[in-house]
């Protein structure tokens, strides 16, 4: 009955981080880090196999009292929404550590591996926490290692980028903390029980004003992380200046924390307000899609281009989430995974070429296809996945999102489609300039193709892109019950909004709170 899989999943990386610090030489450091990142990967795959696809609630649940005075419990659970994100996290951390061991990180490897593994603890903890306090703790914990990763091993204006990253996110998340405290306080007043447990907070009765403010508190924290236009400005700096592994985790996993937060917390806690805010969020999402694509098109720097493409892709995810129907939300979760795989892979590829040429300027390349065909072929594959070519993973996600958004708000889709076209345009245009044509720079003549280690890192990603493009059913099946459960909450709010029955009125009435219980 009792299982400790989730605890193990979260804290084994932390244990590994301490173990890595005790390593003497560089070789054993990388080996230890790789081994310790494989353990959570193995656990997450085991959980994937054991996961019951018919169950919509939390599985592998662990719950103990932590700070009973505050009703804070150590409560972990895994459901269809977090399942694949957990696997994505463990996979990308393992791959980036294996990749970074190949020469990408030139100095202070022990600390690098330490921070990567602490980061993994933070990310997995945030994904698995069911208690709002615990979620907040892990949400903040993941900032610090990422801050160090950017600031120590980054490039260019790394300190500026690290500061911008952490201050933006902290500003957002501190508002969420106030919202959490206020929500719990209201729940305490209403039920007499003090609890930070997410399910127990669903039933808090809020006046529309309260709900709007609280939703805003959560939404700001998550929207900064996504990032939604217009609070995305930290992203291009952080992504560009971060070391390769940092960019992979930032884009691959950390941005999903924002979208995950909407699906897990902001929308289920305040469904009525989420419905009310749908047009706003869909509009911002569409602006993000087109803005990101347009800005990506004019980037001279390959990494910055990929960074801006994230703004565009995450816009799609937000569009799907706020469609608030099964197609849209499942498509959004699917697209989160796709973006993790393909953008993660793109950052790895950009890192590989940067390691060889120490530049990312598109104009410095040209004709690479002739010199490094394996690299070019893999790049092509990943790029097509990112564009959303049918048969590859990106297509499934975008299609579902479009379908969902179409059912909700047709106009949004009309604009979003332009994003798809522009996406193909900037990617293919960049690819053409980097790979095709004659070799114009002499240095490019002597480039070496990918090493076995680098190919080994890319293969799992490519295999997953293909699998998810051809056979999405097993994934969607496992998401569906949890997504349905979440949308049921939204629908009941919708019903209440459309036909205000007495009970619903009472729930919205501020005076109702003060009635004797």
């Amino acid at each position, binding site marked *: 009955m009792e299982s400790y899989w989730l605890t193990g999943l979260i804290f084994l990386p932390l244990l590994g981080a301490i173990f890595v610090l005790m390593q003497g030489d560089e070789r054993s450091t990388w080996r230890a880090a790789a081994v310790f990142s494989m353990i959570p990967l193995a656990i997450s795959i085991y959980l994937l196999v054991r996961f019951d696809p018919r169950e919509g609630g939390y599985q592998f649940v662990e719950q103990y009292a*932590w*700070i*009973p*005075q*505050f009703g804070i419990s150590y409560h972990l659970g895994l459901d269809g929404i977090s399942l694949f994100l957990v696997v994505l996290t463990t996979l990308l951390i393992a791959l980036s550590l294996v990749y970074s061991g190949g020469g990408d990180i030139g100095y*202070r490897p022990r*600390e690098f591996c330490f921070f990567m593994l602490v980061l993994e603890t933070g990310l997995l903890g945030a994904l698995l926490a069911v208690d709002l306090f615990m979620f*907040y*703790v892990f949400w*903040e*914990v993941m*900032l*610090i290692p990422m*801050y*160090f990763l950017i*600031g*120590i091993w980054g490039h260019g204006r*790394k*300190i500026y980028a*690290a*500061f911008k990253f*952490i*201050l933006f996110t*902290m*500003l957002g998340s*501190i*508002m969420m*903390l*106030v919202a959490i*405290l*206020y929500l*719990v*306080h209201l729940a*305490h007043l209403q039920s007499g029980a003090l609890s930070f447990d997410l399910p127990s907070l669903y039933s808090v009765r809020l006046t529309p004003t309260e709900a709007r403010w609280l939703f805003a508190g959560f939404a700001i924290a998550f929207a900064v992380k996504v990032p939604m236009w217009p609070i995305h400005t930290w992203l291009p700096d952080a992504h560009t200046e971060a070391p390769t592994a940092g960019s992979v985790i930032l884009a691959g996993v950390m941005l999903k924390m924002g979208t995950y937060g909407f699906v897990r917390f902001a929308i289920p806690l305040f469904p009525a307000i989420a419905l009310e805010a749908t047009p706003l969020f869909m509009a911002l999402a569409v602006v993000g899609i087109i803005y990101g694509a347009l800005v990506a098109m004019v980037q001279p720097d390959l990494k910055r281009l990929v960074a801006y493409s994230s703004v565009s892709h995450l816009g799609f995810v937000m569009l799907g989430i706020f469609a608030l129907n099964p197609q849209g939300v499942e498509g959004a979760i699917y697209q989160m995974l796709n973006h993790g795989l393909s953008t993660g892979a793109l950052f790895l590829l950009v890192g590989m070429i940067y390691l060889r040429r120490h530049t990312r300027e598109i104009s410095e390349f040209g004709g690479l296809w002739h010199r490094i065909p394996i690299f070019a072929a893999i790049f092509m594959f990943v790029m097509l996945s990112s564009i959303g070519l049918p048969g590859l993973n990106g297509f499934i996600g975008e299609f579902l999102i479009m379908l969902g958004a179409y059912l909700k708000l047709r106009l949004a889709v009309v604009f979003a489609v332009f994003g798809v076209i522009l996406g193909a345009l900037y990617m293919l245009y960049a690819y053409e300039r980097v790979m095709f044509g004659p070799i114009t720079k002499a240095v490019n003549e002597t480039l070496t193709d990918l090493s076995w280690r680098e190919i080994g890192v890319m293969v799992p990603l490519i295999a997953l892109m293909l699998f998810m493009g051809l056979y999405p059913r097993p994934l969607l099946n496992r998401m569906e019950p949890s997504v349905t459960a979440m949308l049921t909450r939204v629908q009941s709010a919708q019903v209440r909004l459309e036909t205000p029955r007495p009970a619903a009125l009472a729930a919205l009435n501020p005076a109702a709170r003060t009635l004797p219980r």
Partner: protein
Amino acid sequence: MTPLNLAAINIAWLPLCPLIVVAAAAMIVLLAGVRVRDDESQGLGALTLALLAVAFVFALGLLGQSGVAFAGAIAVDNFAAFFELVILMSAALVVLMSIDYLPAHGLSAAEYYALLLFSTFGMMLMATGADLIVIFIGFEVMSISVYVLAGFLRRNLKSNEAALKYFLMGAFSTAFLLYGIALVYGATGTIKLGPIRAALSSPMAANPLLLSGLGLMLVGFGFKVAAVPFHMWTPDAYEGAPTPVTAFMAVGVKLGAFAGFIRIFMVHLGPVSADWSAVLWVVAALTMTVGNLVALVQVNIKRMLAYSAIAHAGYILVAMTAAGSQAGGAILYYLLGYAFTNLGAFAAVIALERRGVESDLISDYRGLAARHPALAAAMTLFLLSLTGVPPLAGFLGKFYLFSAALNAGLVWLVIIAVLNSVMSAYYYLAVIVAMYMREGGAEAGALGARPALVAALAVAAIATVLIGIYPEPYMTGALHAFNSAFGAALPRTALMLR
């Protein structure tokens, strides 16, 4: 004239034991120091530690008792015991930091330790007093000893400036406090806190005498806890004083001052909280904002920590504004975490100082991580705790403070507080940036040769983590301690509100 029959006076000695031990310790150390040369003073430090440990054991014995002694002048409750324990811990950590500092700077140890113990005595007296005059005496004993300590680097101009400024401003604030006490006495007819509370509990019209008394006492305590606009002395005093003394000022003095502040205002002036909480609202908002804003531009780490200490006093004032039992528990818990975190940070500053080399600029911390990874990691831990990053003590403390304030309906004050908290991240992280992401900087003295300092760092680091990830016993203890302070005044209805 009949001789005074001493045996007939029934004196409850036991509650006084920690105080007596500390006062006696001061004199023992002073006498023992006669034969000790300044460069061989480690033994005196060890003696001081041992005597503090004895006092600590006596203070532990006071836990769980309740009542008043000396005809209501001394409170015997968990509140006093809690503060005595934390103050003694802080004093012990400061002694650990001083053991190698004093010979390195050629300071005479006996006077130093004696003054340290006397001011510890004053702080403990403030926490124990149930009588405005006793609290005032504690206030003075604490302050005068610290004035001297601040100027202990006799040949250092900055140290002299620190002492003079601190003394002048401190004397000023003392006058305010005393005048306030006099007016409150005039309004209520008593200086005992219990009867004052009883007098105020009966509905009384707005009494100008009482209100002016409250205002003046607020100013007096505002000076000692460095609340804006009474904070002007802090940065200069903190920068000039010997660093262990700065640590003691930032932690010990604050503990003592808040002990008195809380006991008088939150506990015994609770019935008229409407009269002072609005003022405190403004003071809290100002203190946080000014402290953090000015800290942003500091280049000297001691000054930065001084302004950060001002900001932290502001966070505590947020919860004082909220009043109530939960807020009281929150403040006590916060002070516990704050004591260890701040002492740890100052210990790290001391580690980087060597005789003749002033290494207290933030730029001196550049590249520290590469040269002294353990020291840099410890400093990072303390700075992150001060920022309020989970799961460290500083985060849980802020969390507790702010949730108490929210529960009392102070939504806007909490929003100001959390925005300040984000602002503070900037200057704390700037030190981390210097340590980890930049090159150059000053060479730190070897840590291996200073085991006492390492011990102080280790204790502070472990406590900072432990109080954060396993807060339950400390939170319960803090809440009980606060509630017990009501016991002396209102035996029955004290444990209310929760």
